């Protein structure tokens, strides 16, 4: 499905204005980006894990979704949507409903990498025809920027603060995209916001229209948690990709494909420098943190390239 940017921009929003997410939040950009890939005739049921998006897009009696939507709890968006999808298959088979539906879950990294991990793994393994989308902002933002398994090493977060002795989170970020790829599901993609959003659109379209379970991991920055000026979002996501901190790739039918190779791979400090959560890494004497981070990024990038060849 070729991406026609202008046409895509003219599609009616499936996430309405008036939601209560922060100014400059990355999550609604990700959600709108994914939902834009739905064909106009298709209906959708959206499931949502508890988190910033949930409390902000369905504050009673105001839903921002134009499609049917269900939220049950923090850790079970995937299982909840499994139930919806099973109901659809059953009712469709019995002739109780006629419409065509697509099933899309949205969860933050807390509800996906951590507390919702089992539920997600189960849904992926069972082969439901649904898409699970993680908007990854690398910490539990809804409760106030606590450490997650998605939080990168050295990030200063409220339950792993950069203190006098311990310089922020001490563990590396979990690679969830690869873990889900290891479930041998129909489609896995890692994306973020770049240029005219063709990467996000195309991956979303594939994820939605490939039969079987699909997973999208979308880096969706949080200006409050990452501590940068809201207007810099697109600069940050571009740097994430150009430093190879967040490579754009997909795994389709077991084949790994790199979707974007930076013309010039930038040093990781360019991505780190814009964000307050990494400020302590730039203090004199802490150069080793940046070096270690660079080495980690390089190693992951080489490993990914090897998989994509």
């Amino acid at each position, binding site marked *: 499905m070729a991406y026609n940017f202008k046409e895509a921009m003219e599609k009616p929003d499936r996430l309405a204005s008036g939601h209560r997410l922060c100014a400059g939040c990355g999550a609604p950009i990700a959600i709108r980006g994914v939902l834009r890939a739905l064909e106009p005739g298709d209906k959708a049921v959206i499931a949502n894990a508890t988190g910033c998006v949930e409390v902000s897009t369905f504050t009673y009696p105001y839903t921002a979704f134009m499609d049917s939507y269900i*939220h049950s709890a923090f850790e079970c968006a995937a299982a909840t949507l499994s139930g919806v999808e099973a109901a659809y298959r059953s009712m469709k088979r019995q002739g109780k409903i006629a419409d065509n539906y697509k099933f899309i879950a949205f969860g933050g990294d807390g509800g996906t990498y951590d507390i919702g991990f089992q539920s997600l793994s189960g849904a992926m393994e069972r082969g439901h025809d649904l898409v699970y989308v993680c908007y990854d902002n690398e910490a539990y933002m809804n409760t106030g920027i606590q450490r997650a398994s998605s939080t990168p090493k050295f990030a200063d977060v409220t339950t792993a603060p950069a203190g006098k002795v311990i310089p922020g989170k001490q563990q590396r970020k979990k690679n969830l995209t690869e873990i889900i790829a290891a479930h041998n599901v129909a489609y896995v993609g890692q994306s973020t916001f770049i240029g005219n959003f063709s990467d996000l659109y195309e991956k979303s379209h594939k994820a939605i229209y490939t039969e079987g379970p699909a997973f999208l991991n979308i880096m969706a920055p949080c200006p409050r948690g990452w501590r940068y000026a809201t207007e810099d979002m697109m600069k940050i996501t571009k740097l994430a990709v150009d430093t190879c901190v967040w490579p754009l790739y997909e795994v389709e039918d077991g084949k790994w494909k790199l979707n974007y190779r930076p013309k010039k791979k930038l040093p990781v400090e360019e991505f780190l420098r814009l964000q307050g959560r990494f400020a302590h890494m730039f203090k004199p004497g802490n150069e080793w943190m940046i070096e270690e981070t660079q080495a980690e990024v390089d190693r992951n990038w080489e490993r990914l390239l090897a998989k994509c060849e």
Partner: protein
Amino acid sequence: MAIHERLSGNEAIALCLKQINPDVMCAFPITPSTEIPQYFSNYVSDGLVDTEFVAVESEHSAMSGCIGAEAAGARCVTATSSCGLALMWEMLYVAASMRLPITLACVNRALSGPININNDHSDSMGARDSGWIQIYAENNQEAYDHMCCAMRIGENPEVMLPVMICQDGFITSHAIENIELLEDDVVKKYVGEYKPEQYLLKHENPVAAGPYDIQPYYMEHKYQQAVAMKQSYDVIRKVFKEFGEISGRSYDLIEEYRMEDAETAIVIIGSSAGTAKAAIDEMRSEGRKAGLVKIRVFRPFPAEDIAKALSGCKAVAVMDKADSFNAQTGPVYAETCAALFGKENAPKMINYIYGLGGRDVSTGTIKEVFAALDEIVTTGVTGETYRHIGVRGL
């Protein structure tokens, strides 16, 4: 025409579910409820039902899946026990607050720890405040009959609450006994189609379910739940009455056994009620005026019915197959006392915690309880109200 069969409680539930033919079942195995999804998945594999069977990876996901399916407009069922119900805990509340009439076959088993696979009521008693209707069976027949009624109760627009159909693990779930079944078409017709007014897959409009409810709205929504539970009294009575018309077996919220002139009585739930009936028959033959009140429906709590049934008694023992660890009472006693509070001529009341973790309850156990009641009647002294029976060293 009734069909005479011999089935275990689990077989009876699975068979009833086959007759009902729900749209979705989400379940995870746990002793002693495992057989229910196991038997049912045979029906699925053999194409005997239209049900989509989702073999989830945990009970938490089972209840989450049920919530998704029921909200989508499907009739959805599950089965569990003990720790499985405990793992569902959070989602039980969510299901009730979303007003989704899911049906859960609960095969009662002790909660860990220590881990134990045998019967008591600590699992479902712990879920008593989750907003579910709870109906308890004495035997396989009642388990089957209650399951036939579950959806008509839960799906009633005045109720819209999930329903837990409970039976005692192993004692009835794994015991083969005689049972009278209804024909498939009779059950199907009686249960009817699930026709919610609003659901996720509705053609006419999208539906958003499960909001973030801020302070100005949350309490009103909880009050709606409270009203629904109150309204369910009459709905349950009506459904039981209608069931009596098709089956010849009529039920009420409670069952009174030889209470007409009873001076001493016990209040009890589940399979031990049957054992107690046999004990009471023996005591009656010795001229003792003993009786029994069996609580069939624990949620909503039939306070008025119980108070009325016990009004002529001198002493009553309330039997709890679960402890509340409040150093005072088990849950059934606390609520029974509340039901009788302020009533004139209320009987003297004691509480027994009994049968935990499969501790066998014989007619002898029941007679011990009545002996204690007789002593209270004779001496006029109630003594300690929080008692345990069947514990060595007491």
